[in-house]
């Protein structure tokens, strides 16, 4: 996990996706080939840091590696450039969550390998509603 995380840290830290140089379609996660025009020419670009919730769930039983964090709110957010991104939604009272809420990108710990392993950081969202 440590190495696969290292490889993607710019993606996770800065929401670094990519953009097709032919048709300007943007992607996060980055696309290998443009899904719209098929172009092979894509360049890295940071995604916008605000958007709105398209859907969300409150996960009450977490996967191995996320113990102690439950409940986790997970959402699919449409960023202001139209790209849909999956991420946790934090610091928002559960009863305030709703589809359409504006959100802003934040930098958080994703998981922590107890007290001896690595700490994995990345983006999450916080609702502005």
């Amino acid at each position, binding site marked *: 996990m440590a190495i*696969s*995380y290292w490889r*993607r840290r710019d*993606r*996770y830290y800065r929401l670094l996706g990519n953009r097709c140089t032919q048709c300007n379609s943007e*992607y996060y*996660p980055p696309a290998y080939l443009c*899904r719209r025009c098929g172009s092979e020419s894509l360049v890295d670009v940071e995604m916008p840091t605000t958007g709105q919730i*398209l*859907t*969300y*769930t*409150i*996960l*009450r*039983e*977490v*996967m*191995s*590696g*996320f*113990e102690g*964090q439950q409940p*986790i709110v*997970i*959402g*699919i957010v449409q960023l202001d450039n139209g790209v*849909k*991104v*999956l*991420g*946790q939604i934090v610091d928002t009272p559960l009863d305030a969550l709703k*589809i359409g809420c504006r959100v802003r990108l934040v930098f958080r710990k*994703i*998981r922590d390998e107890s007290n001896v392993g690595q700490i*994995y950081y*990345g983006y999450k969202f916080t609702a502005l509603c």
Partner: protein
Amino acid sequence: MARVIISSVGYTRVGDHWDKSILDLAVEAARKALKPYPNIRPEVIIVGNMFSSQSSKQEHLGALLASALNLTGTPAFKVEAACASGGVAFNVAYSKVRSGEVSSALVVGVEKMRDLDVSEASLALSMAESAEYTQFMGASFLSLNGMLARLYMETYNVSRSELSAFPAIAHTNAATAEHAQFRKAISVEDVSRSPLVSDPLRLLDCAPLGDGAAALLLTSEEFNGDDESMVEVLSSKISTDIFSIYERDDMLRFNATKDAASKAFSEAGISVEDVDVLEVHDAFSVSAALSVEAMGFSKEGEGAKDAARGLYALKGRYPALTFGGLKGRGHPVGATGLYQIAELWLQLKGRGNVNQVEGCRIGVAQNIGGVDTTSVVSVLARR
């Protein structure tokens, strides 16, 4: 092209097999399938399995099973496509017989899930999704379906009790199915009042974790001689969609299922109206609803509502989940697609006992991996 016949089936009951290993289960199902035809030595063995590496620290299942069955020398290998592993393994076996490359094939689906903690099983299942961008964020497979369910209910104004209809149908049928994990009927209210696990999904919206194995012996026509009620595979098609739902333009469209179904129906020369019995991938109530919509049994947004209206009940127009589906019979992931085929075989052979759909002739099975990222749709007919 050879006609492909399902000569026999074998399976274990789904559930907690504390005393059986992944190989024990696979061998049990395989031997049951081979038993009626002691003179057939399958020319290929294909194993459908998703995460034996996680559950049993075991790979190389093909040769492992071949050796255990005293079938060394036989080509044998594992096929993996997440929860569609069983359906895809069936498709591969079917293709080999159909093409004439072999005249008999043993296909075995197996999964050992209960050796894992729930949180470990959840991690294993999340491997169906992007490890880098979905699993990393803590989004389990359950949570993706939770989000899908919220979007589905919101978009199509689906009520809680309508969403509960598929699980209730599944359990009604599972109550009288000998091999089902939960032989217990539950009501729509039971589903709607069960504990929230990933809202709006509740515990009883979701298929359980269970161990199990199912096997089929596929043969070309000549082995089956004058059997009056042969079950023939008319078609089997696989399709795939953009990997993660959040990368798709419309998250509520099961495009892979739609595509696979349309091709499978077309090749089989059938239309939706011809289908007498239906096994859909009801890993979650919402996935059942979206599946029947994608295949054309219900209109968009009407899947759960149609289930609530009785369309998919055993006595409905399109009897579905006739032995409990994933929810009631259980969902030993890599075996699920083969349980579906085996159950259609029972129906088409008229061996469904109290679960029998009277006079059925055409059966359809739909098995998906990921959130309809891979879909396999197969059409079977009684000859």
